[in-house]
């Protein structure tokens, strides 16, 4: 047996901790067995009160430079024997703390990755829901329950500034209604003498709606469009439209869209993005799927699932619709931004569709006669070529 100085402690610590006692504890002389391993000792103590069970659970042997767990006490022939197992975490705490490791998880770390999904936090429970809305009138400028919308009429008529063979006019609904009323209430505007063709026959023969080849309603504020033009400007304010061989005075002004660009419009608004109520601090990843999901419903384009990563660090969502009132062709762009700064060049969603409502006019017409005549003309031309060869 060899004697050794041992500091004994009644010490509370976790098994997998580098924690060490800060005081000296109770100092004793112990007797080591002749044969021992440094990591596992068998020490005999000669306590004054041998009848009292030792309450120590931890030890330090300075000469070995190590801390030990006391794993068992034995009473043997008037002595208390302790089995000691080295506590490597406490013994080498300084070196461990000084080492650089690849840390995957930590409670206290200056490096936080709050957006990194934590697999130990499972989505559970009944979901809560929030929504943000923009009323159609607030987005487009006009609602269906008012006469504020814009009617765009494409008519065939004499006009040097037309787009193709059709001249487009943008007007308010009352102006459009007044125009139809004038056209269809009396054939006087035809200026055909009743001595040549009776009024009844004029009505039967001439259908003014045949000159209207495009008629579409848009939910945008007609006053602004007619007076100020579309997003790119252009077009001129007129008081009459040319329809077939005739000219019609309008009840109020309209805008003649003499270039494709003059029918261009851009409308944009933004939402505040609802955020996960627990998605703060180190739990910012709650703002991501599967803890959070976003769905955008944008009639008439459809319903879209939004990638939650697009809203990280963003507070608002912008929606922009660019469209032409000459065709109804529209492009929807959705982008995320912060502080009312939205860059639609970095859109998270770009989708094409059609907006505007086709208004029924007096006829749904396809001038199939032209097609039949064309086919007949082609047949005659072909036969004529054959006959020429026969001759």
């Amino acid at each position, binding site marked *: 047996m060899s004697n050794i100085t041992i500091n004994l402690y009644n010490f509370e610590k976790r098994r997998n901790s580098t924690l060490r006692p800060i005081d000296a504890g109770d100092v004793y002389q112990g007797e080591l067995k002749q044969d021992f391993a440094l990591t596992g000792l068998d020490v005999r103590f000669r306590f004054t009160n041998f009848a009292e069970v030792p309450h120590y659970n931890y030890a330090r042997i300075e000469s070995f430079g190590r801390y030990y767990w006391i794993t068992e006490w034995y009473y043997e022939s008037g002595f208390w024997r302790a089995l000691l197992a080295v506590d490597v975490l406490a013994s080498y705490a300084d070196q461990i703390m000084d080492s650089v490791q690849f840390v*995957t998880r930590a409670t206290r770390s200056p490096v936080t990755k709050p957006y990194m999904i*934590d697999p130990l936090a499972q989505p559970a429970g009944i979901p809560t*829901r929030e929504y943000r809305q923009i009323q159609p009138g607030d987005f487009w400028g006009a609602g*269906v329950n008012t006469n504020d919308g814009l009617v765009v009429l494409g008519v065939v008529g004499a006009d040097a500034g037309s787009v193709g063979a059709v001249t487009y006019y943008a007007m308010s609904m009352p102006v459009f209604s007044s125009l139809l009323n004038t056209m269809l209430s009396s054939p006087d505007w035809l200026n055909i003498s009743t001595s040549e063709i009776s009024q009844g026959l004029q009505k039967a023969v001439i259908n003014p709606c045949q000159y209207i080849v495009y008629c579409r309603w848009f939910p945008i504020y007609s006053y602004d469009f007619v007076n100020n033009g579309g997003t790119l400007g252009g077009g001129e304010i007129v008081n009459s439209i040319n329809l077939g061989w005739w000219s019609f005075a309008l009840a109020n002004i309209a805008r003649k869209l003499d270039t494709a660009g003059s029918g261009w419009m851009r409308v944009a608004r933004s939402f505040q993005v609802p955020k996960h109520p627990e998605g703060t601090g180190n739990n910012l990843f709650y703002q991501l799927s599967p803890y959070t999901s976003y769905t955008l419903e944008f009639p008439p384009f459809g319903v879209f699932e939004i990638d939650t990563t697009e809203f990280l660090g963003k507070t608002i969502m912008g929606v922009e619709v660019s469209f032409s009132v000459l065709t109804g062709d529209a492009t929807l762009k959705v982008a995320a931004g912060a502080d009312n700064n939205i860059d639609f060049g970095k859109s998270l969603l770009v989708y094409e569709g059609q907006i505007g409502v086709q208004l029924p006019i007096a006829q749904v017409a396809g001038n199939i006669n032209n097609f039949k005549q064309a086919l007949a003309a082609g047949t005659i031309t072909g036969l004529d070529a054959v006959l020429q*060869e026969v001759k």
Partner: protein
Amino acid sequence: MSRHLDLLTGAQEAIGNAVTDQASALLDRVRGTVNTFTQAALPTAVAALGQLHYSGSSGNFQSATEPITLYAKFFSGYRVQDINESGYPVYTRERLFSCRGGYVLVDMPHIEIDGALLLELQVIEDFLKGGCYIE
């Protein structure tokens, strides 16, 4: 006998060739006529197709009455373990001293300590790999 046969066969061949030639010529003329007809007729008909247009349709205003809506759905996160016993994701190389005061989990730990025994190093690495407290 064989000479007569040859003559007869030759005559058959001559007659057959004449019929074939006439049929072929007729087919050529038909084909040419169709070509001529098609080439002359098609451009006229195709050009006239441009005149074909439709106007007017029935639309509906339903989509213009619907609000534009952003829906959000939130699930609470249920933590399998207490944060003090499991920590947050870090995934970074760093000095363990900076994690002092809490739980730490290390991937592929490697440590060198002057004077430490091999067994002790293995145990330390096992602790780091399984999660321990730097205190």
